[in-house]
């Protein structure tokens, strides 16, 4: 009895801790006036409309979504041949390339950001809008690389052997057998990269902070001059996008497996 109560209390406090800032931000986003107060005074959806009607915020939204789409595509384009090669061939040296693909995510982000800043400055492209797409594409390559590696591991060897026995070459096997099987992993890797790119601040800031404003950059810049309720509505929008995207991955894919769980009945 007591154990059950303690358990509920523990889980309940964690839910409260994790959702409290989001609840308050959602609350202040409905304030009628431009003040930071909770519980909200009055009710208004103006600050949500502002994201789309105000030129600055709309531009930042377009920038962010554009960068996230470009970067998530690029990260898959880089990760796919690498994951395929690692699965198809036995080549220990290729592990070095794999480690390079995992490194940006393990190292503190400031380091990758500073690397890009010195690189783009040296290359003379500092501040060009496309540099942030490449920077994010490389920075988030880890995510599709991890999901695709899992996807290739899940491919049943006998299917590949059967196709090979029937005379299919590598290219045909890739197109007709493997691609349909790992499509969910491509999509989920891309979705992870998309959501994280949307939220990423430091790499974007160091690459193009003075020329292109993405939403996190705009929120940070506005924070330095005080409070605008649009920050709150953008935050709510971002949480909603994340919940929808990860919810869809969970709905159509195997989220626990993607995150490294084995089902015990699958062992062996």
């Amino acid at each position, binding site marked *: 009895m007591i154990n059950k109560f303690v358990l509920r209390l523990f889980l309940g406090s964690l839910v409260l801790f994790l959702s409290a*800032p989001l609840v308050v931000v959602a609350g202040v986003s409905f304030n009628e006036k431009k003040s930071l*107060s*909770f519980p909200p005074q009055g009710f208004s959806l103006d600050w949500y409309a502002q994201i789309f009607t105000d030129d600055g915020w709309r531009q930042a939204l377009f920038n962010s979504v554009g960068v996230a789409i470009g970067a998530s595509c690029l990260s898959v384009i*880089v990760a796919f041949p690498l994951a395929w090669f690692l699965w198809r061939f036995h080549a220990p040296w290729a592990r070095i390339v794999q480690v390079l693909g995992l490194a940006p995510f393990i190292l503190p982000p400031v380091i990758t950001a500073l690397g890009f800043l010195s690189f783009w400055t040296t290359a003379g492209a500092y501040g060009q809008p496309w540099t942030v797409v490449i920077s994010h594409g490389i920075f988030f390559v880890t995510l599709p690389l991890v999901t695709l590696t899992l996807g290739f591991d899940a491919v049943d060897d006998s299917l590949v052997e059967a196709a090979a026995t029937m005379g299919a070459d590598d290219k045909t096997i890739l197109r007709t057998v493997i691609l349909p099987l790992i499509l969910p992993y491509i999509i989920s890797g891309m979705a992870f990269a998309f959501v994280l790119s949307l*939220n990423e601040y430091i790499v974007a800031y160091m690459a193009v902070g003075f020329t292109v404003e993405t939403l996190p950059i705009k*929120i940070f810049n506005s924070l330095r001059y005080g409070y605008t309720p649009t920050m709150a509505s953008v935050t709510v929008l971002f949480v909603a996008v994340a919940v929808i995207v*990860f919810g869809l991955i969970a709905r159509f894919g195997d989220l*626990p497996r993607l995150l490294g769980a084995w089902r015990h009945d699958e062992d062996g």
Partner: protein
Amino acid sequence: MKLKPQKFADYATIAFPAGMLTVFFVIPFGIMIAVSFFQRVQGAFYEPAFVFENYARFLTGFFGGILGFSIGLAALVAVVSVVLAFPFTYILTRMSRQAQVVWLVFLLSVLSLSEVLIGFGWSTLLSRTAGITNLLVSLGIMDKPMSLSPGFGAVMTGMVYQTFPYTVLVLYPALSRLDPSLVEAARTLGSGPVRSFANVVVPALRNSIVSTLIMVFVFALGCYLLPQLLGKPSHWTLSVLITDQAIYQSNMPFAAAMAVFLVLVSLSLVAISLLYGKKEHAA
């Protein structure tokens, strides 16, 4: 059956990712290391040189203070996160699949949140006008609402908020692969759920706990905005200082030198944590 790559076409597939990662990750890294030896030029950016003065600044008391604070803060955050996340992750892996999925979606959503948004969220929650103290006042616990940020408590809270979902996801694979018969055996032999957790689960995953502590420590070390948004200048960490030097003081060589230092610290710690993880795998 895996083959050795033979034809030119076999190598061609890895050439593209290898090339991209070399050009856009290895070379930037190299340039950063080079810049760390460059000389800063007042009023301009920097000029090529080979000086150690950027590294020599590590020996100053100012830098020592920041480094000590960064390490202490990251260690404290890592310990708090793991202490909270380990029992939670254990409970999570014992839930129904559906409940696990709901939790995982929630945790991933929090984890993906920008530091900017987390900082904004907590500064709102800890503010005087919209914050938690208003609730305490209406409950009669406090006299009047006050601001709890900036401060050390606010920095800690924000950072634990950010690292908690990460910690859970790092622990999740190890805990979900834990053989359930271990705990069942302990339960059959008469120990309660808490005792079997403390005496069986924790020791069985000792190495995972150590490697997770290190991973979370490195993650917390990389936190670049929360100390700035929720703390006072005395709560700035190495990552904040690097950003500040690079962007606002335009002192790229010094920023690069600190970044190289941070890489070395992080890489050696990650290597240690991988070794620990391996040991358990072999056992």
